């Protein structure tokens, strides 16, 4: 217990009074005696603190012995650890779990799958001395814990100089890379880095991301990637598209392209299952019409157009009979510049009759355009409208509204996302809420119905307006559970 100010003051007064007439020699003796007393007390306190800590440890150890958590079999711990490790913070999470006790450390260190989260490794040379040693040692230890599993790696190069000790450790794991993303933020990566990449054995590489690669530097590395026997997915965001890629093996492709080459590249990828294309739209419709390109395995297509007025030269030439998800983003378009022609889109939909998920972003679609698109997607289950104010109004909401005696639009729709919208221009909170409520029933309500409703029940409704969605809307939708309705 610490002495209070008043008790300290009292001691001062007491000793002043008592030693008023003491000689200097006496006072020096008193000081010596007091210092001895202090030393003795300090020693006793240390012993007591040690004793206290010992008893605390004793209590903790005894509690540990009977803790319910020890009823869990050791083999269940990795399952629980795995769930606790989130992708976005996997390094911190895995380390924290391994630092609880020696038992958990042993279990976690002997479970390679806990250490296979995506590693971002910056190769810059800005650590030196002891700090560099710790960095290299711990990186090495981390990478070893996932042996023999394959791992995803992202290498970031944001300066021209490379820390070769870090690079050495990373390159040792190259045969285990399942995915590799190279993020080049410097103008010119060191030639040694490129040649080492080119020499590495990428036997397990399935996914490759080349972000901001420039054509002057990377031909050797790119050639080595083409020999990776398992490469199936490629993301290349660069103005330079290498022509030596194993296009025909790819099942996933994300690329930026000019309008001239987009169809040429897709034509080389007959096995695509998923494609994300960033392209400028066509400003002038091409004179010659190409033959129809059929991508018979394509299930997901994400088209992001910039600037141009037309995208029909692409949709007119494409057939995707297995297509399930289509996302169209008319990014950065200027108002009234994009030409949407329902007839062309309908023709494309007839060649992609299995679409279940449709998404439009920054689109000038009208309500009629959207209705026609939905009408030609009879299996539609998911609809996302992001900043598409012109295609959603009260009439459209009413068309989606379920009324027992009518057949509503999109009867299978159960996942609906409306982003960046404003009430008031075309539709009201009331109409939107009524439409949403019309397609929701509790388990009990559904069980008690003799005839099931002719539309699907919502599994996900997400509304994210340009302004805060008030209490009024939340109140109108209060019957929908929070895991179904998300208001932002």
């Amino acid at each position, binding site marked *: 217990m610490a002495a209070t100010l008043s008790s300290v003051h009292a001691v001062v007064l007491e000793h002043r009074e008592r030693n008023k007439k003491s000689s200097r020699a006496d006072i020096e003796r008193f000081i010596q005696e007091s210092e001895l007393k202090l030393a003795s007390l300090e020693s006793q306190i240390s012993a007591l603190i040690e004793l206290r800590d010992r008893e605390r*440890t004793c209590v*903790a*150890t005894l*509690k*540990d012995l*009977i*803790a*319910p*958590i020890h*009823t*869990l*079999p050791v083999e*269940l711990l990795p*399952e*629980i*650890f795995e*769930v*606790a*490790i*989130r992708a*976005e*913070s996997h*390094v*911190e*999470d895995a*380390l*924290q*779990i391994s*630092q*609880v*006790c*020696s*038992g*958990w*450390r042993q279990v976690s260190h002997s479970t390679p799958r806990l250490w296979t989260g995506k590693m*971002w490794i*910056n190769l810059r040379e800005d*650590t030196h001395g002891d*700090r560099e040693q*710790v*960095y290299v*040692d*711990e*990186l090495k*230890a*981390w990478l070893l814990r996932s042996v023999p599993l394959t791992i995803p790696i992202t290498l970031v190069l944001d300066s021209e100089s490379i820390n070769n000790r870090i690079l050495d450790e990373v390159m040792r794991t190259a045969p285990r890379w399942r995915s590799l993303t190279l993020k080049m933020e410097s103008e010119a990566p060191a030639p040694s880095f490129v040649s080492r990449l080119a020499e590495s054995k990428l036997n397990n590489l399935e996914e490759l991301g080349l972000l901001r690669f420039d054509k002057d530097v990377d031909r050797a590395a790119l050639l080595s990637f083409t020999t990776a026997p398992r490469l199936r997915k490629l993301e290349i965001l660069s103005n330079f598209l290498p022509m030596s890629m194993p296009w025909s093996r790819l099942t996933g492709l994300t690329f930026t392209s000019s309008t001239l080459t987009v169809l040429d590249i897709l034509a080389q990828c007959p096995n695509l299952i998923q494609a994300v294309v960033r392209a400028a739209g066509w400003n002038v419709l091409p004179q010659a019409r190409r033959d129809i390109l059929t991508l018979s395995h394509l299930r997901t297509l994400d088209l992001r157009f910039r600037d141009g007025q037309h995208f029909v030269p692409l949709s007119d030439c494409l057939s995707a009979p297995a297509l399930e998800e289509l996302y169209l983003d008319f990014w950065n378009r200027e108002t009234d510049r994009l030409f949407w022609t329902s007839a062309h889109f309908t023709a494309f939909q007839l060649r992609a009759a299995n679409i279940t998920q449709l998404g439009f972003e920054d689109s000038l679609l009208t309500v009629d355009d959207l209705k026609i698109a939905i009408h030609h997607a009879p299996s539609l289950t998911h609809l996302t409208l992001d900043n598409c104010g012109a295609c959603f109004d009260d009439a459209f909401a009413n068309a989606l509204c379920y009324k027992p005696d009518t057949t509503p639009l999109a009867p299978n729709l159960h996942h609906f996302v409306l982003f960046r919208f404003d009430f008031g221009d075309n539709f009201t909170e009331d109409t939107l809420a009524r439409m949403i409520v019309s397609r929701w029933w509790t*388990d009990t309500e559904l069980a008690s119905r003799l005839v099931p409703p002719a539309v699907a029940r919502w599994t*996900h409704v997400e509304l994210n307006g340009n302004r805060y969605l008030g209490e009024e809307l939340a109140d109108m939708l209060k019957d929908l*559970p929070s*895991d179904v309705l*998300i208001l932002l």
Partner: protein
Amino acid sequence: MVLLVTSDNEQFQTEKDIVERSVLIKNMLEDVGESDQPIPLPNVSSSVLKKVTQPSTGPTEIDVRGRYLSTASTTVESPSRPPILEQSQDETRKRTTDISEWDQKFITVDQEMLFEIILAANYLDIKSLLCRRWLQDGSQHDQGARPPEEIRKLFNIVNDFTPEEEAQIKKENEWAEDR
């Protein structure tokens, strides 16, 4: 309806779609086909089975020892459906990182029951119950694993690291911060 018999010989009539969340029971039902025969669950007690298959009917109360009371002053909102029917974290991962109130309640007050449920979930092969985020801090959105000291305190785990291991852990954390 399916008749389940617990380790303490209690019988439960449970809806088929609920019990089929258990891969073990689902497989057993597929093996025996349509039958009125009871399904024995020798590794699951009646108290555990009740907890995972039956929703509470109203506000539930728990005392500090984790016992459920019929009425009291401190109320905790009960889940609206049986825990067995809740989605697994894998299923909900894209949307939220919250720990459900049900999980939070058990982790703080009734650990014996919590671990019995985990064991039962493992035996019954119910992914949605096994794969919950027991080690995560449910107090905030987007929270990762709890810090080691908090996990130790929560579960009464003793820190048994040697000084050398402590030094190694310090280095690991330095590296993690330096990345």
